[in-house]
């Protein structure tokens, strides 16, 4: 159905590949432009100098930059992410266990943000100028201007410290007797595990969404307002369609197209938020990993995280393009360009 030809897809994949190479190069350079190396953290009175030097050599830190870069590029393209000097494990094993957790949080945030945002934007745009529009719009702007971590602390304070309803850390209960909504561990079934995850994801998710929906809402509201005055909405009304049908099927459906464009920015915004939120909520995902490894100049790991996030954004970009062709039949990607 999608008007995307295989040829165009192949072309996009090639472009994406080079974009990812660019991201990798940038990550490589940025990390090395930052002062210090992970070996600095190894300095201590009982770390003999020789041992430190051995590590420097083992990771090739004394090699010329171009050689390190070459090795990095070759390794990554052969699927070798290397060894993390600070975590003492394969970089891939770190990513393997952390990426799904980030995807859960990020994916849920994205989905909720982009369901709630456009829905609210649709109503506000349709009823533009009403008191309800003005107050919700103002509330959205306030949320938009607040730092995500600030909202996070507020939520933790209220729902954890004060009310004790929701956990403030981790993705699921760690031990059978953890205070939780749920009965003992042994009796866990898959759905209980899901409820447990939902219980834990509530606060971080809410923190991200409380800011994340606004961008989509703003775009949707503006678009809706343009679309409301369009001739096809007028015709739809003249056809005797109900207000709901006109608003959703005819108006919102068209207003959604620019929201897809905004979503590309939104992806970056939500990833950005997720990094901070993971940190605050001890969510053991990629966000916490990137903060930690960049600060400690764990090049092998930090590079890999950048790489994965880059791939993620490029893939999202591609998906958005495909979504476009569904949303707007005027757009097609059939040529080689």
């Amino acid at each position, binding site marked *: 159905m999608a008007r995307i030809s295989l040829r165009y897809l192949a072309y996009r994949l090639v472009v994406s590949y080079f974009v990812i190479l660019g991201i990798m190069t940038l990550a490589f350079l940025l990390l090395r432009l*930052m*002062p*210090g190396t992970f070996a*600095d*953290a*190894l*300095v*201590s*009175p*009982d*770390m*003999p*100098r*020789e*041992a*430190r*030097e*051995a*590590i420097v050599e083992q990771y090739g830190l004394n090699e010329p930059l171009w050689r390190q870069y070459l090795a990095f590029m070759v390794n990554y393209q052969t699927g070798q992410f290397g*060894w993390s000097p*600070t*975590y*003492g*494990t*394969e970089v891939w094993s770190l990513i393997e*266990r*952390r990426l799904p957790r980030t995807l859960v949080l990020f994916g849920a945030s994205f989905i909720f943000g982009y369901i709630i945002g456009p829905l609210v934007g649709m109503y506000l745009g349709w009823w533009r100028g009403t008191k309800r529009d003005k107050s919700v719009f103002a509330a959205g702007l306030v949320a938009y201007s607040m730092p995500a971590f600030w909202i996070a602390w507020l939520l*933790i*304070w209220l729902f*954890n*410290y004060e009310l004790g309803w929701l956990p*403030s*850390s*981790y*993705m699921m209960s*760690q*031990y059978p*007797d953890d205070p939780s909504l749920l009965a003992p561990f042994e009796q866990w079934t898959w759905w209980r595990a899901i409820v447990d995850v939902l219980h834990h994801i509530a606060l971080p998710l809410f923190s991200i969404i409380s800011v994340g929906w606004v961008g989509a809402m703003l775009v949707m509201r503006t678009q809706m307002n343009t679309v409301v005055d369009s001739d096809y909405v007028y015709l739809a009304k003249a056809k005797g369609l109900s207000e709901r049908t006109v608003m959703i099927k005819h108006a919102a459906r068209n207003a959604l197209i620019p929201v897809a464009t905004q979503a590309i920015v939104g992806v970056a915004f939500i990833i950005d938020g997720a990094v901070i939120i*993971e*940190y*605050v*909520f*001890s*969510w*053991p995902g990629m966000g*916490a990993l990137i903060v*930690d490894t960049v*600060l400690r*100049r764990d090049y092998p790991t930090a590079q890999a995280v950048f790489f994965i996030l880059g791939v993620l954004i490029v893939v999202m970009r591609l998906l958005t393009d495909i979504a476009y062709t569904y949303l707007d039949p005027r757009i097609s990607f059939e040529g080689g360009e």
Partner: protein
Amino acid sequence: MSDDDTTATSSKRRPFLKAGAGAVAVSLAGCTGDGGGEGTETEPQGTEEITESTPGEAGEGDVPEGGSFRFGMSNPPEGVNPMATSSSYSWTVLSEIMGYGTALDPVTFDVQPSAYTDWTVENVDSGEPDVYFNIREGITWSDGEEFTVDDVLFTYNFIMEANPGRYASTVAPIETVEEADNDWDVHLKLANPVGTYDSQQLQLPLLPEHRWSDVSPEDFTEYQPQENTYEVDGQEYLGPVGLGPGRLSRYEPDTSVEIEYRDDYTLNDLEWYQEHENLRAGGPFLDNVRINIYGSSDALQQAFISEDAIDALYGSVLPANIPDVEEKEGARIVTGSDTGYAHYSFEMRTTPFDDTIFRQAVGLVYDHIYWINQLNRGTVQRGAFTMPPGYTAVRPETEIDAEINEHPASKAFDFLEDQPGVPDYASIKEFLQNGVPITGESAEGDNQVIPGRDYPGSMTGVTTDDMEARHEYTWDSVESDILADEPGVEEEIRVNGETITEINGEPLQILMYPPQDSPLGTQMLEDWVSKLKALGIPVERNVMTFNTMLTEVYTNVNFGAFPMSWTNLSPFGAPSLEGLFHSSQAHGPDEIGETDANNAMGYGTEGLPGADDLIDEALQTMDTEERNAVARQAVEKIYLDAPSQINSHEIPQWPVNEADFEGYVGGIPSPGDSYVSVQFSQIHQAE
């Protein structure tokens, strides 16, 4: 380097300690030699047998067994391969699992038996000593296998072949390891005398041969013990296997780690343990310790203060949160002592930091009262010597039985006050102009070299290398730009007739951390710099961006002075003194810019004062008492030579849940991090 950075590489853990009457601050025992082998004579020591009796001192009943202790950390363990990781977070876990040949008393720092029952050294005079020891029979690895001599031989051979960075210097002097051909079990041949052999060579983490024989000494760093599971009584545990009290029962390094304690652990029940005044034998008493890993230190602190999600946390409570813990019901703060020091060190190849009297004088305007009482509100204690107050055996005061930090000889370069907060500039100028430093010889009464301050002479009898000033100090009109704008500065110092700015092409540089990372340090530096300027010394602050301090001081020479902290120093002195003050740890002339070294000051290098002789002697003296005496001399000589100015030692503030648990041990070094395994062996449920 901030504390947090340096603690990333901890020193060895000593897991074999027991506490007695709970959280009473342990009084620090004096330096009692443990009668280590003298000369070539064989004097077996530590011949305790395991006793079956329940531990505990007279008058104290049994403590409740069981319970789950929740501990929080803000960083994940970086693997649990004892050969590969140096992370203190990893070792918080590993200390509960691994066992050693000897144990260290956390109060007296005496070396005591553990998996080895007794040991001795022969042929010290030959320069190549022979160490003999016996292993304990009847103890088992955590997977149930019996501990054997073969395991010990395997451990040494494996570490010598693999040569992991963490143990490289420990195995370097070992020439051979073999089954002894006399009455002893094992024979170690050393290439040179090692004063601390009983706490180093005899304190390697012991590896079970049956689990490590498949690990290649080449690729040992890639070995992931946790993937290697084993079963005991139908329960599955994760590797590694060790002689320690615990087994790893859960390892999710991003969120939580659980250690379950064995029922058959006996090494906390040895005689020395039962006789200990401050530790309770027979532990651990807990069923398990659950370590929660949080994403940030804020989350960690709040998990304790607001959420009651943990019973204690790794490290200290943040100063801002101390009142919260004090007000919190069922919580209190256990204090302890530092394992290191915070300091400013001087680049001794920069004029006039090359002159001992100048370095000493700089200390006289450093307002430590302001630093300790006002800025830190008493959470640090005064610094003087490079060894923290808890390491009494190697403190110079011990030599003459003086109170730690109280003797005038340990206050020689304290802030010289005219009136509160204002240095006695006139006396300090006079001191510099006269050109006679505090040498170690008595300078009291009429012989005062610092007007207004008596110095009784060094406690250990050492003197500085610089018996008089290297330069001539005078004061003249202000010429350096940096002083010109300074209100109230009327004179500028001249070194041999020249201003310091003329000599170096710039004012003296003092490196600093970004103010937002170190607000207190910044305020202190501001105060110090203004006082140095008032003395007519042109100094300039130089803010290092994040994480560049080390690179700057390790690869450049003309950095002037830099702030840093060290932790986890050896309680035996010499090994740490070697790492920090030996000339071998300084830049050689052609190494600058290429390598780094902990002795960034250049102390002991060509033409500069040093303590190499004393450090080397301490390193090689196999008699504990003699070794400590030499170490004390080295410590005091470093004090007089002043390559580093020791500002303070931290007083750790470890917050704990006292409503549900008792048995915390205060007064020991780093009670909540480096020595937390002592706590795990002592904590028990409240009655």
